[in-house]
């Protein structure tokens, strides 16, 4: 897939000089592209004179960076301790079964990315599943189909 690398220079400019941080640079790239495309990282590496390996090291160390494109919809299951003792693992497993992917992956049609998060601090609502920023609280295994149907319905609505 072709990725437009025109803006890389502008993003790099922001992070050169004193106090510039490569972590913030990667955050800006991900903010712009939704993930860290290989071509963009290569371009940034050339632009800044920083070895690509160093950018790759940061990109794989920090959990919030993704080297793969993400789906149009993000489904995020909280697996914090409070959610865990209320059965979050079973919810995540059910999401994996229904979407046919493992946590961290994206469906083949790039519709859904399934992720888990260590804690959202919405523990009163646990177990929590967040779909495109919308919170679903006190989720049970039985609710999963309904939650997915709602996103799929909305997705179909967008297309038509």
């Amino acid at each position, binding site marked *: 897939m072709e990725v437009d690398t025109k803006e890389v220079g502008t993003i790099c400019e922001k992070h050169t000089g004193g106090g510039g941080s490569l972590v*913030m640079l990667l955050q800006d790239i991900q903010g712009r592209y939704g993930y860290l495309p290989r071509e963009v990282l290569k371009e940034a590496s050339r632009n800044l004179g920083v070895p690509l390996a160093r950018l790759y090291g940061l990109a794989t160390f920090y959990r919030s*960076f993704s080297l793969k494109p993400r789906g149009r919809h993000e489904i995020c299951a909280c697996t914090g301790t409070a959610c865990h003792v209320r059965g979050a693992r079973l919810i995540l497993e059910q999401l994996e079964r*229904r979407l046919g992917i493992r946590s961290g992956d994206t469906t083949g049609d790039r519709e859904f990315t399934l992720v888990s998060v*260590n*804690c959202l601090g919405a523990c009163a609502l646990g177990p929590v599943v967040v779909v495109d920023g919308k919170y679903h609280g006190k989720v049970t295994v039985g609710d999963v189909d309904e939650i997915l149907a709602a996103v799929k319905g909305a997705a179909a609505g967008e297309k038509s």
Partner: protein
Amino acid sequence: MSVAERGRIASVARLEEIRRELEAKGRRYATTISVCAGTGCQAYGCQEVVNAFAAELGTRKLDEKVLLRSTGCHGFCEKGPLAVIQPGGVFYQQIKIKDVPDIVEKTIIGGQVIERLLYSEPKTKERIAREADVPFYKFQERIVFGRNGIIDPTSIEDYIAAGGYEALAKAVTTMSPEQVIDEVTRSGLRGRGGGGFPTGRKWAVTRRQAEAVKYVVCNADEGDPGAYMDRSLLEGNPHSVLEGMLIGAYAIGASDAYIYVRAEYPLALKNVHIAIDQANEWGLLGDKVLGSDLSLRVHVSRGAGAFVCGEETALMASIEGRLGTPTARPPYPAQSGLWGKPTNINNVETWANVPLVITRGAGWFSRIGTEKSKGTKVFSLVGKINNTGLVEVPMGIKLRDIVFKIGGGIPRGRAFKAVQTGGPSGGVIPESLLDLPIDYDALTEVGAMMGSGGMIVMDDRTCIVDVARYFMNFLREESCGKCTPCREGIKVMLGILTRICGGEGAVEDIERLERLARGIKAAALCGLGTTAPNPVLSTLKYFRDEYLAHVVDHRCPAGVCTALISLAIDEAKCKACGRCVKVCPTEAISGGQKKVAAKIDQGRCVRCRACFETCPFEAIVIT
């Protein structure tokens, strides 16, 4: 008054003048409605409630008389969306949009209390009108967290009107840096982020360093799952954290500060940016703060999702844009921290305590708490508990009071099993220790830890081995991989625990776990590694029987470990309602209609317990 008219506040006298003006402005309103708009309540949809109030007040032309305020987190997350109406302190909970016209009509205009929106005491069914009388709040001492409920976090005016920046004014005009450090030292304030190191002593060491450039850092990388008090403080009262940092910078002689915020906290990030911009505009940050010699620039660093970055040396590496891997101490950050310069790191709650210590004095502060742990602590009370939320209590309070008086006990009348404190570095406290007075030292003594203040309550349906495995899995993912004991040791411990939960454990595994735990504790590089075995050691200490049930009898007494349980239907209790058939994700249940009891196909059952949770007749049995 616009910023242009007012200009930067160049003296303490001017700050006081502005405070008086703001107070007078506040008195113009006959009534205030404070709606909680913390992250928890936003998930409940509190924004729509706020909008409904604004519309209703507008329609009735009440906006001149009634002040509507979106505040930070009030703490009682279980009951959101919630609002407090002043004067009177009436507390309404679980407010829906359709309740709003009623509240305006009856309470704001009519002065009546609406019974159905009041908190109802679960045991007595008694309705309680005032916030201060609700048990959840009544037994708390909210000196740090209390202002969250009365100010709009995006309004510096609100903070100043509530006495904000008074401590800063006092420090820079009437105290020398040494006197500030002395006051903080005498207060007995200890770090609220986990270690419990005396704050004043840390400041003194940083001040003593001969370097010209020094930094102060706020650690807001609150990573312990189940702990969210730092987020709620930063989100709900960001100026109190900035004020604490300003006082700290004055005391140690720093002119640059960093706040390192966890990436998962978008609202905290937003509010802290707003607060910094406002403080800069008003002359409370930047050059010559309040006309004094203090200058401070505050920068914000956004985390990128690495738990280990809560460790101070890793955090500093991350601010510098490097891999967040810890380094060996000494040298301590106070000697050589950010870019090799002396750096003082405290967490959000510690910084928020500082203005209180300065305004009200070390004597006042040190009267709260126990001999060695002074002041209060905010805990997040979560898990199998009726009143989930953030609670601020004096150090030394009994755990029993937190769980039962404030927390309202365990849901569905189930039995209390344990409380896990201190996150992945902490341990469990069993029922026999419920009367333990909670402070830093008491918790460490019983094998748990204060940590940042997460308290995860567990009932008899929580498997303790599964919880230990959960933490080991968490730590395996979050270990940075730099040192071998942590990287490899945790992996092996996790493997053993997974085997035990999978029904393939042996008695010798318990001894293996203990041996590995000792090795990792002794040899790991940083705090993450040396404390990593704690969840296993402390559960083994108090719940060895439960481990033995898994490895000897291949049984999970709590009915959680899927490999060790099976589900069946008690035909006598089954009413053939079909709910379990619908909810089963693998179509393993047949029957359940036309008066034929349901039946579970064990070959297809994945033991997800969906049917168990759904059945209203308790007809599903776990064995």
